[in-house]
């Protein structure tokens, strides 16, 4: 298994947390690529592409709601957050989304001011600004996928079915982490998804292999063009954010979980013959 030495833009600048996340996700990337290659094999490709559009609709319909939830979460402490002490007095801090670490690491850093996790957290304002800027870029992509589905000969009412457990496993943890720990966790999810976009060659390859019209690949083509830039924006933001050690770990766990769940989803789709 070869591990690429990443060409890192901005490496060494700022905090470097985006660089570290990118390097960590690259350790997991070969597994995602393997699953995608199996998904796109020629035999039975038309059926799998239709299933892929439905599955991606289940995922992408949550993109803007997640970003909006995270943006709102930048202005309030996590739900169910236990009473915390005042680190300025040296009190222990329990379950603190700024300084505590529910993910198994030592509690390092943290900057709660008088026990207020919002006012004392320098991550929240730049995170909120990033989300406000990028939410419009992601809006209505779920509708694009439905249009692609219709163009590919799929039934437009199919998304009315209950979403599958693998899509929920991919998306669902983000709601938990945002609501109960810290909205910065979403950056791991975004970095993982936008860091593994469709190849620029993929839409043409699929069109030729399936015989479907070009309108069936609008969303793929768009993401192949823009996601590299979008993922760069996420990593650049993380390179500027003064994350605590627990926050760094939470973002990495979010990203790695996303890679794992994405692999599972692609494997399930790839099993369709």
């Amino acid at each position, binding site marked *: 298994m070869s591990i690429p030495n990443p060409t890192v833009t901005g490496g060494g600048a700022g905090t470097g947390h985006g660089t570290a996340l990118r390097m960590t996700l690259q350790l997991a990337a*070969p597994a995602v690529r*393997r699953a995608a290659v199996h998904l796109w094999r020629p035999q039975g490709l038309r059926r799998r592409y239709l299933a892929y559009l439905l599955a991606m609709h289940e995922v992408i319909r949550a993109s803007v709601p997640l970003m909006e939830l995270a943006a709102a979460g930048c202005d309030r402490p996590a739900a169910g957050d236990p009473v915390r002490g005042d680190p300025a007095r040296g009190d222990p801090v329990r379950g603190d989304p700024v300084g505590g670490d529910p993910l198994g690491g030592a509690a390092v850093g943290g900057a709660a001011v008088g026990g207020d996790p919002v006012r004392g957290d320098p991550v929240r304002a730049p995170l909120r600004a990033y989300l406000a800027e990028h939410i419009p870029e992601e809006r209505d992509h779920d509708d694009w996928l439905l249009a692609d589905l219709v163009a590919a000969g799929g039934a437009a009412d199919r998304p009315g079915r209950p979403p599958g457990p693998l899509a929920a496993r991919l998306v669902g943890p983000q709601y938990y982490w945002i609501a109960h720990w810290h909205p910065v966790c979403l950056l791991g999810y975004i970095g993982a998804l936008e860091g593994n976009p469709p*190849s620029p*060659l993929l839409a043409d390859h699929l069109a030729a292999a399936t015989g479907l019209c070009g309108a069936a690949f609008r969303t793929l083509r768009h993401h192949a063009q823009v996601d590299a830039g979008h993922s760069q924006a996420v990593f650049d933001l993380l390179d500027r954010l003064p994350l605590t050690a627990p926050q*760094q770990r939470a973002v*990495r766990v979010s990203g790695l979980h996303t890679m794992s769940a994405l692999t599972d989803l*692609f494997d399930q789709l790839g099993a369709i013959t």
Partner: protein
Amino acid sequence: MTAPEWNALDALNAAGFPVGSFTAEQCEVFGRLSTAEVDMLVDLKARLDAVEPEVQAHGAVAGAALF
């Protein structure tokens, strides 16, 4: 008797990651990984190893994630 100290690079090396070829920057980053993170990486690597030649043969059209 105390439990051995956690060493992420040792765990990655034991799982077959090419730790010896990592750059100093990679060693610094990966050395900070927790057990949960290494466990996820090891699981993904195990699933990859059986089919890696397929990845190398068709990588030009790989990629599929959408956000």
